[in-house]
């Protein structure tokens, strides 16, 4: 079997072993199987990556022919090019780290083996999503990660709130999936193929009518919105924080939620021919970046702050894709995976130390008690805030620059994205001040049992914190690159696939330097404001938040949840209750169930009379049957 096929299959093996015999194995074995197989996957990915980087051709491995009809052939095939390599490296690398972290985090859980089985299952589907060479294979992974996400959000299924969150995530994702499927149908209809390379080549050569292109593009965007929690399908992500924290880090920060961005980047050849669709993508991303950030400001729950932050950052990535700067979007995806995973895992260490306390109002001054956790959280926060030389600066700056300088960009777009970045700095340092600094608000009985993270957790946090610092150095922005006289290996690696983003006429390097300076200033301003408001806060100030109705509006997610609850769920519920339950269902049941049932019963009764128990009657039936058969034979002769 080829190396490429092994990459997704190893985690599947881990799922099967841990899922079937895991509960009967010793815990150490479960941990070993659960971590070693993803780690092996990562090693294989690294090997393939180096082969590709050193001038290798993109790999294709056909596992089997899935369907072969006249004019419609689908291969179950894997495809490994630069974009897939980046994503695959993130999924297996960070995935492995989070598996290792989970050993410490989940050590006391009753369903330890089930947890690792699900996590491995997730990796399998995620790798299928990333490596699928056509939309159908990707869709299998796409649905599979949805399933794994559902299973892991509702992992502690005895709590109805958590299972409801899992169901919500699944159902909202289905809306996006419908868009994905319709886009796939339209692509098959127009291009006659589902293979990514062929689709991109086809539309580059012969674009369809603009309306068709826009329709396909928007449907793909709907698919991406569902998975990547973009407005208007973002409502599931905050609730998804009900799952164990490593799951939030892996699925709902680093990998699965970025699948939408990956889809957009994968379809770059198509999107470049659909400028109207790209415009929609840009503004959906920008709106999500902005509104996600505003909601992040109002949260008290540490994990929810991070959830909204994830949403907002993915908004930036989607926006970059909309501007045609797929490589910038992917680069932010890559750096974001490190520092957001680091933030979530550090938050997990805090939650673990505080025995499940998630409300930042009951934290404070933890820097003294958890100095290491504070340090890594701070590093990752600085990376997310976008201060040089941390990873987030380079990737976010490139996106902000594109928002200004790309053909689809404008000063307005740049302003929206910069406002989102400013708010990011504000709410992240709000979280830092509330959690780690300021007054001590930890309940005394919790404080007594407080403990530092275990060895595996510490190690993983250290690795991710280092990555949060250094990961950005392989993709410096253009002007910085020229000034330092270096290259950007990341862009050089992916741009053969994604293409190089075009710039508008008349933008210059001096503008780039200026905007970079403004971005840093905005970040510093956000941090200062956070210190001003929360750095000196007392308990009383936290009890009565400012802002009144506006604040309530934002804190409740602009009541989008309530709107869906009443508008969509309420309407469907009403229709089901009245029309379907009272009108259609009884009639349908009478025709389709009661009638055939009565008929079958009557028929059965008449035949039952034949079976009277007298042996000689049976002989008689046999004789009659024999006669009939003989007669039939003679007559047919």
């Amino acid at each position, binding site marked *: 079997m080829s190396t490429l096929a092994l990459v997704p299959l190893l985690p599947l093996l881990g799922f099967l072993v841990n899922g079937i015999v895991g509960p009967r194995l010793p815990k150490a074995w479960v941990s070993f199987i659960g971590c070693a197989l993803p780690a092996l996957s990562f090693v294989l990915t690294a090997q393939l990556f180096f082969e590709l980087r050193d001038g290798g051709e993109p790999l294709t491995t056909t596992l089997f022919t899935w369907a072969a009809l006249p004019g419609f052939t689908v291969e179950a095939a894997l495809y490994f090019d630069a974009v897939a390599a980046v994503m695959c490296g993130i999924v297996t690398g960070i995935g492995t780290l989070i598996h290792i972290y989970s050993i410490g985090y989940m050590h006391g859980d009753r369903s330890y083996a089930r947890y690792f089985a699900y996590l491995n299952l997730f990796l399998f589907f995620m790798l299928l999503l990333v490596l699928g060479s056509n939309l159908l294979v990707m869709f299998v992974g796409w649905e599979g990660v949805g399933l794994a996400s559902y299973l892991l959000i509702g992992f502690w299924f005895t709590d109805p709130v958590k299972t409801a969150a899992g169901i919500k995530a699944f159902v909202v994702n289905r809306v996006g999936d419908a868009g994905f499927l319709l886009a796939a149908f339209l692509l098959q209809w127009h291009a006659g193929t589902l293979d990514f390379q062929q689709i991109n080549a086809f539309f580059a050569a012969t674009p369809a009518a603009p309306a068709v292109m826009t329709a396909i593009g928007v449907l793909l965007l709907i698919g991406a919105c569902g998975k990547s929690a973009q407005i208007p399908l973002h409502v599931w992500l905050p609730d998804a924080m009900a799952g164990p924290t490593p799951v939030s880090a892996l699925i709902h920060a680093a990998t699965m939620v970025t699948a939408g961005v990956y889809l957009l980047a994968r379809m770059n050849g198509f999107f470049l021919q659909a400028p109207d669709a790209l415009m929609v993508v840009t503004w959906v991303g920008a709106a999500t970046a902005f509104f996600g950030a505003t909601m992040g400001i109002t949260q008290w729950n540490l994990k929810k702050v991070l959830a909204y932050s994830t949403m907002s950052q993915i908004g930036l990535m989607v926006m970059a894709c909309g501007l045609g700067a797929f490589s910038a979007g992917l680069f932010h995806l890559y750096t974001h995976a490190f520092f957001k995973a680091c933030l979530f895992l550090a938050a997990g260490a805090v939650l673990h130390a505080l025995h499940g306390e998630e409300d930042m109002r009951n934290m404070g001054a933890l820097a003294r008690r958890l100095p290491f956790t504070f340090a890594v959280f701070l590093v990752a926060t600085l990376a997310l805030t976008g201060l040089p030389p941390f990873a987030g600066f380079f990737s976010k700056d490139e996106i902000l620059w594109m928002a200004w300088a790309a053909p689809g960009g404008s000063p307005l777009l740049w302003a929206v994205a910069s406002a989102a970045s400013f708010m990011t700095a504000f709410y992240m340092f709000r979280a830092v001040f509330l959690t780690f600094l300021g007054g001590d608000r930890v309940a005394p009985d919790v404080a007594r049992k407080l403990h530092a993270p275990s060895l595996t957790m510490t190690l993983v946090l250290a690795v991710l914190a280092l990555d949060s610092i250094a990961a950005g150095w392989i993709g410096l922005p253009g002007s910085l690159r020229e000034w330092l006289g270096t290259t950007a290996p990341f862009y050089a690696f992916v741009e053969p696939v994604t293409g190089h983003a075009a710039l508008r006429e008349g933008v210059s390097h001096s503008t780039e330097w200026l905007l970079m300076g403004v971005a840093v200033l905005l970040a510093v301003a956000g941090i200062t404001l956070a210190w001003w408001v929360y750095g000196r806060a007392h308990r009383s100030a936290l009890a009565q938040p400012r802002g009144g109705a506006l604040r309530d509006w934002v804190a409740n997610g602009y009541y989008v949840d309530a709107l869906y609850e009443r508008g969509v769920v309420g309407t469907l519920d009403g229709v089901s209750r009245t029309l379907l339950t009272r009108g259609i269902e009884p009639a349908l049941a009478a025709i389709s169930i009661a009638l055939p049932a009565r008929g079958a019963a009557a028929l059965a009764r008449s*035949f039952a009379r034949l079976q*009277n*128990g007298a042996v*000689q009657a049976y*002989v008689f039936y046999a*004789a009659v049957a024999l006669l009939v058969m003989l007669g039939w034979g003679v007559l047919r002769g």
Partner: protein
Amino acid sequence: MNTHALLVGLAAVLFCMGLAGVMIRRNVLAVIMSLEIMLNAVVLSFVTAATQSQTIEGAAMTLFIYVAATCEIALAMALVVLLVRRHGSLDVAAEQELKG
């Protein structure tokens, strides 16, 4: 009318008599005897066919049929004993529990 046709006719008559006996007689021993008549009717037709075509297969089949018939009788006798034990009678109609 030649001998062979006569013998085949006799076999058919015997078979029908046996079948009627199986269906009509209430005494289990009579039913089993009727069964034997049916079997022998078949054997008769085999032998007739064998003589007519001057081959050995029909005659050989007779031996097989008698082996099977012997086994069948052994089983049937066991059934008769069980029936008598359970119901104290030889009436086949006594055993009518298997009904729908």
